[in-house]
C-alpha cells in the first residue's frame, strides 16, 4: 500500500520560500499530475517526495509512514528524470541492472526483473547499446525501465516527455498510461503541459508560485475551476476573459454588463455569493462555448483577425473592442480575416470571477 500524503509541506532555499504549505492526499494506485507554470515548485515538490531535497516544514508520508528523515533509497520510490539521467558509460542492460547489482541482489532475480522491464517497454533489442546510440524516445524508455526494475511503490516522473517531439510525446503518453494500468502503482507526474495533465491524470494538482490552487479530476477542473488561474491554465486554447461589471442583483442572479462590448448584458444565476452592484468582475468563456448568434443569452459582435484551421475545428482570433477573443468554430464554418460576425454567450456556459480572480458561484 503506498498512498502519499503531504501535510503542510514547506520548502525554503535559504530565506526564499518556494513551497508554502502544500496539502496533497494521493491514494494508493492513483495517477496524480502536478501541473503549473515554470518555476511554480513542481520539481521541488517531487524531489522532496523522492528525498533528493530536504523538507523545511511539514510532513511527507508514503504508505502511512512519515518519510521526512528517511534516505531517498529507502522510500520505495523510483524517479524518471527529465534529462533521463542514464549512466552514459553503461549499456542499456547495465543501466537497468546497476542499482540491483550494486546492492548484491541475487543474479537470477536481477535478470528476471531486467527482462520483465525490457518486455514491458519493448526494449529487448536495445539491451547491448549505450545511451548515446539511442533515440530520445528509446532513452526515455530505458529511464522508465530503470524505474520499473526497482519495483517501487511509487513512480515519480519529472517532465519525462518534454525533450521529445510532438508525435513521440503522444505515443509515450499512451505508453505511460498503459504502464500505469499494468503495474497499478501510485504515479506522480510533473508537467507544465496541461494536455498531458488532462489526458494522463486521475487527479490534477494545479500549482502556482508555490501554492496549491486546486486539486481535482481533469474534467472537474475544466468544468468547475476554483479560480481564474485554474480556469485559464486548464483547457486549450485558453479560456477567454471578458471585462464586466455588476449592474444589478436580484432573484438569485446577477445582471452583468460586458464593459467592452457596447453594454451587452447577461443574466447570470448565482447560488452562493452576490457581489455588490458596481463591482468589477470578469466573465470567463471557453472558445468552444461561443454559440451562434441568437442561440445564447447575450450576443456580441466581433471581427475576425486570424483563423487557424485544424481540420476538425477552426480557431478564430477575433477582435472585439480592446479584447481579443478566441472562438472555436467547426471547420466548415471557415472565416477569413476581416469578417464581421456575431457570437453568443450562454449564462450556464460561462464562469464569473471577482477582480482578485476568485470564482463567484
Amino acid at each position, binding site marked *: 500500500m503506498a498512498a502519499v500524503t503531504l501535510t503542510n509541506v514547506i520548502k525554503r532555499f535559504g530565506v526564499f520560500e518556494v513551497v508554502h504549505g502544500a496539502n496533497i492526499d494521493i491514494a494508493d494506485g492513483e495517477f496524480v499530475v502536478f501541473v503549473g507554470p515554470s518555476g511554480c515548485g513542481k520539481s521541488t515538490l517531487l524531489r522532496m517526495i523522492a528525498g533528493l531535497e530536504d523538507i523545511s516544514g511539514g510532513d511527507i508520508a508514503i504508505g502511512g509512514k512519515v518519510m521526512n528523515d528517511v534516505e531517498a*533509497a529507502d522510500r520505495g520510490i523510483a524517479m524518471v*528524470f527529465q*534529462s533521463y*539521467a542514464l549512466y*552514459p*558509460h553503461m549499456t542499456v542492460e547495465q543501466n537497468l541492472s*546497476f542499482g540491483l547489482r*550494486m546492492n548484491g541482489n541475487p543474479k537470477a532475480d536481477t535478470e528476471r526483473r531486467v527482462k520483465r522491464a525490457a518486455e514491458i517497454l519493448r526494449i529487448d533489442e536495445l539491451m547491448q547499446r549505450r545511451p548515446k546510440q539511442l533515440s530520445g524516445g528509446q532513452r526515455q524508455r530505458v529511464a522508465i525501465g530503470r524505474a520499473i526494475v526497482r519495483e517501487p511503490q511509487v513512480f515519480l516522473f519529472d517532465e519525462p516527455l518534454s525533450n521529445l517531439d510532438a508525435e513521440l510525446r503522444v505515443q509515450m503518453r499512451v505508453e505511460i498510461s498503459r504502464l500505469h494500468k499494468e503495474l497499478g502503482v501510485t504515479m506522480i507526474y510533473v508537467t507544465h503541459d496541461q494536455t498531458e495533465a488532462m489526458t494522463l491524470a486521475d487527479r490534477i494538482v494545479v500549482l502556482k508560485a508555490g501554492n496549491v490552487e486546486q486539486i481535482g479530476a481533469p474534467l472537474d477542473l475544466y468544468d468547475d475551476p476554483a479560480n481564474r488561474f485554474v480556469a485559464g491554465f486548464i483547457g486549450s486554447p485558453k479560456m477567454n476573459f471578458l471585462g464586466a461589471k455588476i449592474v444589478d442583483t436580484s432573484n438569485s442572479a446577477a445582471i452583468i454588463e460586458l464593459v467592452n462590448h457596447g453594454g451587452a448584458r447577461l443574466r447570470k444565476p448565482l447560488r452562493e455569493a452576490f457581489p455588490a452592484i458596481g463591482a468589477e468582475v470578469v466573465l470567463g468563456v471557453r472558445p468552444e462555448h461561443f454559440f451562434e448568434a441568437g442561440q445564447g443569452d447575450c450576443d456580441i459582435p466581433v471581427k475576425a483577425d486570424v483563423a487557424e484551421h485544424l481540420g476538425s475545428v477552426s480557431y478564430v482570433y477575433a477582435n472585439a473592442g480592446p479584447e481579443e477573443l478566441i472562438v472555436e468554430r467547426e471547420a466548415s464554418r471557415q472565416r477569413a480575416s476581416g469578417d464581421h460576425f456575431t457570437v453568443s454567450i450562454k449564462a450556464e456556459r460561462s464562469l464569473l470571477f471577482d477582480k482578485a480572480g476568485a470564482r463567484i458561484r
Partner: protein
Amino acid sequence: MRTQNATAYRFLTPYLLIFAIFWIWPIISSFIISFQATRTVPWRFAPAFNWGRLIGDPAFYNALKNTLLILVIQVPVMIALAIVMAVLLNSPLLKARGLYRFAFFAPVVVGEVAYSAVFRLMFSLDFGIVNKLLNSVGIPKIDWFSNVTPAMALIMIAVTWRWAGYNAIIILAGLQSIPEDVYEAATLDRVSKLKQFFHITLPLLKPVIVFCAVLSIIGTMQLFTEPFLITERGGPGGGTETLGLLLYRQGFRSLNFGYASAVAYTMAGLAIAITLVQLWLMREPK
C-alpha cells in the same frame, strides 16, 4: 572559395614561414644530424657513429632507466593525487573554493629557478624544514642530495608538487561536466558515494585522465629542470640523470650535436610509443 583560401594563406604566410624555419627545419635538421659524425670537421655522414654508440652507451641506459623509473612511479601517483584533489575541490562542502583552485594551480606559475632553490632549502640536510619535521616524529635525517634513492624520491616529489594541481584543475573541469542528476539517480538506486565514485565518476573521467596521463608522460620524458637544478645536474654521480639531461650534456657541454640529436629522437620515439600503448590500453570498448 578558392580565392578566399588563397587570401587566408597569404595572411598566414608570416606565421607559416616562422613555423617552417624554427620548427619544421630543426626537426628535419636534427634528424639528419643524428646520422652525422659531428666531432669531426667537416661533419660527415656516418649512421653507426651516434646510433651505434647509443645502443652500447651505459650513460644512455642509466638515463633511460632513471627517466622510466620516474615515469612509472611519479605519473600514476600524481594522477591519483590530482583526482583526489579535484574531487575535494568539487565538493559542495568546500569553502573558499576559488582560493584553493588558485593555490593548486600556483606552482605552475612559479619560476623554475625559484622553486628549485626553495626545494633545495627545504630538503637541505641540516637546515631543511623537511628533515626537521622528520626528526620531530622520530625519523632520522635523510641526506636527500647524496644518496640515489632519496634523490630520486626528491625529484618525484618536486615534479608531483609542481604538476598535480595543474592536472587537478583539468580533471575538475571533467568532473563538472558530469551531470548532477546521474548521481541523484544512483542515490535513488541505493549506490553509496564510494561506489558512485568508482562506478560512475572514474569511468566518466577516463578520457580526461588519459589526456592528463599523456601530457604527463610527454612532460616526464623530457624531464630536465628538476634534476638539473635541484639535484645539481643529475647528482649524485648521475643517479638522477635523465634523458633530457643527457641530451643537454652531450649537445651543449660536449658540443656533440649528432649524439644529442640521436638522444632527442629516442626520447620523442619513446614518448610516442608509450602514449600509443596507453591510448590502446584505455580505448573505448566497442
